[in-house]
């Protein structure tokens, strides 16, 4: 009893602590952040409400909704906040695209910001209730801090959307109606604050339906599930209308007007001229807020996102609703053309929960296991003794290793170590003499022995001068944590490239594997051609197809548009990252699918025919046969090839140089930077590449060991 009380107390204190951290970081942001776009808009919206409400004119709520494209709840909250403040001259009505209005009066601005920040703090505290670590991740998330500490619309809905999910989860655990009503109310409020955040409600409904479908019950009993779902939905809709007084006089017309605005806005010049690639939301996730240096004290964002990657599997079991929320919201963000940074607040909470799972899976549990192993001393000694028996004598192996070891050390390992040393300096073209004559070693030695202090370094501009300087790990840390954009592109490119190559390769292998298909060896020989051609030439032949002015495609488009009206957009892909990615994927597919085809054919040949016959007897057919028999058997055999191609795609270089694309891999970037003479920066990127590859190889090692036991002979 007493222990339980203490535990509860500790938990409450922890939550309060996290709330305090969240509050402190947001108050700091409220005070320090400069006025941003749109803040004048929503402050004006609040002011319009406050002016009339002060006079007791409540009808303003049905009359006024400045910036009608967004529902009014957050603006009403700002209006109430401003009620007790002295009035100030009305903020001018400016177009949405206007720059930040730096003349806003301080007192009301800060009051409104504080109101928004309150909801940010509530969000962190509510999440801490579920999982303290996740709460901490939201409390320190820089995008969340920034956009809940400014007069934006994000504060209220990011809190209420979390409430939608939390209350639903409580109801699942203990089906009391109050939780369901709370969840529905929260959904109504969320939608009335900003439409996008209603995705949390969609996630809840989806989870609800899926779990009802999965429950092994008679169909008519499933209907029992439907009734509360419908009630929940109705309450949400009613709440939405109740807290959205602007809709009361003319609901349908005003609602339609407000919603249809967004589709048009997504196509507008304000959005398209930003040239954000479709994967930009991932880029936002991979970094802390890049503007306003010095405002955010705990920029953990990149680590949190990384942890979330490790937490996906665990979250599928522990937090399926949050994972569903994350998947739906991320899918929406990737598809939706508008990519503003504040949209990441849509997924701050689910990312934090999944990241907390990732912390458990990738850090806490391995550490615990390691600790356990350390303590099991006796067992360890025993194992060591057994290991010794199997070891060959060192001097017996040494002569065999010697030539390779010498060569490897001299021409591969030593350069890599030298590269690490270069990465700790500002070695560049103008200082090449000094660097070659031992300057790099001198500086690193003096730096490591404390004779010189590490210099701050600007990796984009290493400066001039004829001398090399020690910079310590500054440059490396800058790139490691500041190049989210590059990593995200690498990830998107590698995943999509391998997926497309594997899909086409396996599809062709399946066709060629069908018994009775004619001309098999002819087709196979033909399809090997792209692989036989050097990658350089492959890239060249695609470049003469897609070259914007004189390429095959663009000339074809020109001659097409002469005979038919309208023109095809074959040119200009080099300015658009999405189109550039498609061009790269097509060329990469062309060059890479033969390898996957060969691997898949070899794998398919190992599957005994009897299995198919057995499956066919069971009544499986076509697609089912592939999904349930072929793919599970072939995939483990294909895995080494897939990983090989993934690493190849990760390193891909010639394709990017020859096609001259705006989006590039780390190795292509390193090459360009090197040819500009910024040797240290190039070395830093290479060191990062090596670090990532080590991670990939360790992972690869684990995967292939896991598949070792599979055999079909």
């Amino acid at each position, binding site marked *: 009893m007493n222990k339980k009380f203490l535990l509860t107390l500790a938990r409450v204190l922890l939550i309060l602590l996290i709330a305090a951290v969240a509050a402190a970081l947001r108050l700091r942001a409220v005070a320090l952040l400069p006025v941003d776009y749109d803040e004048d808009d929503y402050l004006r919206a609040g002011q319009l409400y406050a002016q009339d409400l002060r006079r007791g004119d409540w009808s303003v709520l049905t009359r006024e909704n400045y910036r009608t494209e967004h529902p009014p709840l957050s603006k009403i909250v700002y209006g109430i906040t401003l009620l007790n403040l002295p009035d100030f001259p009305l903020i001018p009505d400016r177009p949405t695209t206007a720059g930040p209005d730096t003349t806003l009066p301080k007192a009301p601005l800060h009051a409104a910001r504080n109101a928004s920040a309150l909801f940010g703090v509530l969000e962190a505290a509510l999440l801490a209730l579920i999982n303290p670590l996740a709460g901490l991740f939201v409390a320190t998330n820089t995008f969340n801090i920034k956009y809940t500490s400014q007069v934006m619309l994000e504060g209220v809905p990011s809190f209420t959307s979390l409430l939608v999910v939390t209350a639903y989860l409580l109801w699942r655990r203990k089906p009391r109606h109050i939780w369901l009503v709370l969840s529905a109310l929260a959904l109504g409020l969320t939608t009335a604050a900003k439409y996008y955040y209603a995705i949390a409600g969609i996630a809840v409904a989806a989870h609800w339906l899926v779990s009802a479908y999965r429950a092994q019950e008679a169909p008519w009993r499933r209907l029992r599930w439907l009734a509360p779902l419908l009630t929940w939905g109705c309450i949400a809709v009613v709440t939405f209308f109740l807290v959205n007084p602007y809709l009361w006089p003319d609901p349908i017309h005003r609602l339609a007007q407000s919603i249809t605005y967004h589709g048009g806005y997504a196509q507008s010049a304000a959005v398209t001229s930003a040239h954000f690639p479709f994967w930009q939301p991932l880029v936002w996730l991979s970094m802390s807020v890049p503007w306003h240096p010095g405002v955010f004290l705990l920029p953990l964002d990149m680590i949190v996102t990384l942890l979330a990657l490790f937490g996906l599997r665990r979250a599928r079991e522990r937090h399926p609703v949050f994972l569903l929320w994350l998947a739906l919201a991320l899918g929406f963000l990737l598809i939706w053309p508008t990519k503003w940074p504040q949209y990441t607040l849509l997924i701050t909470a689910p990312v934090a929960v999944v990241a907390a799972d990732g912390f458990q899976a990738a850090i806490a549990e391995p550490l615990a296991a390691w600790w356990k192993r350390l303590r099991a001393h006796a067992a360890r000694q025993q194992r060591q003794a057994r290991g010794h028996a199997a070891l060959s004598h060192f001097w017996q192996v040494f002569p065999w290793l010697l030539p390779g070891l010498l060569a490897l050390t001299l021409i591969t390992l030593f350069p890599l170590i*030298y*590269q690490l040393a270069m990465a700790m300096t500002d070695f560049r073209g103008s200082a090449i003499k000094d660097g070659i004559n031992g300057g790099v070693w001198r500086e690193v030695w003096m730096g490591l022995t404390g004779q010189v202090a590490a210099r701050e370094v600007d990796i984009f501009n290493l400066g001039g001068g004829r001398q090399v300087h020690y910079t310590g790990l500054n440059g490396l840390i800058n790139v490691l944590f500041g190049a989210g954009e590059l990593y995200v592109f690498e990830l998107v490119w590698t995943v999509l490239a391998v997926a497309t190559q594997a899909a086409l390769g396996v599809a062709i292998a399946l066709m060629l594997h069908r018994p009775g298909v004619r001309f098999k060896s002819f087709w196979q020989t033909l399809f090997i051609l792209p692989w036989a051609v050097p990658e*350089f030439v*492959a890239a060249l032949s695609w470049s003469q197809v897609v070259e914007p002015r004189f390429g095959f495609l663009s000339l074809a488009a020109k001659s097409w548009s002469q005979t038919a009206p309208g023109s095809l957009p074959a040119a200009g892909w080099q300015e658009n990252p999405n189109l550039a990615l498609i061009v790269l994927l097509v060329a990469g597919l062309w060059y890479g699918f033969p390898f996957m085809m060969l691997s898949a054919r070899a794998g398919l040949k190992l599957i005994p025919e009897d299995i198919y016959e057995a499956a066919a007897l069971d009544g499986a057919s076509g697609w089912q046969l592939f999904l349930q028999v072929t793919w599970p058997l072939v995939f483990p055999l294909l895995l080494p090839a897939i990983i090989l191609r993934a690493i190849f795609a990760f390193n891909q270089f010639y394709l990017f140089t020859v096609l001259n694309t705006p989006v590039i891999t780390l190795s292509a970037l390193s090459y360009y930077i090197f040819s500009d003479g910024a040797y240290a920066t190039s070395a830093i990127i290479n060191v990062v590449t090596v670090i990532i590859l080590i991670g990939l190889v360790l992972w690869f090692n684990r995967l292939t060991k896991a598949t070792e036991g599979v055999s079909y002979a």
Partner: protein
Amino acid sequence: MRKSGAAIRAGNRRLSPMKQLAIQGALLLVAAFVLIPLWGLVRIALDGSIKSVPTSFSIWPQEITFKVFEQVWKTPSQSLSFPGLLRNSLLVAGSSALAAVVMGASMAYAFARFRFRGREPGLIVILVGAFLPLVALMTPLYVLLESLKLRSTLFGLILVYTAFALPFCIWNMRAAFQSVPAEMEEAAFLDGAGPLATFLQITLPNALPAIGVAALLAFLTAYSEFAIGWLFVENSQNVTVAMALWGIITMGSYPWSQLAAMAILMSLPVVIVFLVLQRALFDRMVFGVGGE
């Protein structure tokens, strides 16, 4: 590759004509995808009407001529003829592949057959090395070769490509040695052969085809590499085919026909080797990389 009885039986089964047609149609589409860029290259190279860049869309060459090939054969770069470039390419690629295989063989054997302390981490290091992009070694090698005054020489290029190929070759040769049954070695051992003799007379000859494939892949990488060479080599006598090709591109307003002709000349030997060795590659390479 041994054909199982089931596969032979399955081969006798007939497809319905409709399905046969559908599959052949799909394969034809893929063939079009494969051939379009290649045909584009061939068309441009054969078309005598293209002066600098193609200005109109056409599927067939306007006037077929081999003039461009002739021209590229004689003066592909400022200083060397195509055979000269090819000689450099073959020398650099061949030497680096050979060097990587020779220097790495015994180490690969040690990793394949012996258990020793540090073996696991050693394997990881080699695997990471095998997966490194060439660019990752470029920066330090540039400076090291510069200080040895080797940067612009063919020998320097050979060193660079060997450094890149070595871990890859060790990894693949290890797999090759592992696929030789240990019983064969034990038999030789019992006959009184020492470890070196066993390796040279039994293991090496049996692993040779797979080692050949590893060497071939190392050769091909070096053969088509241009980026590092372009940055390192300033001496115009030491230019390879790939570098000369890149040289034409970086000139800016390059004649597309020459570029295409040279790309074709460069690819032909490689493509022929690939198609001839198809079977060996197919059998060896697909699962040559794997865990223990």
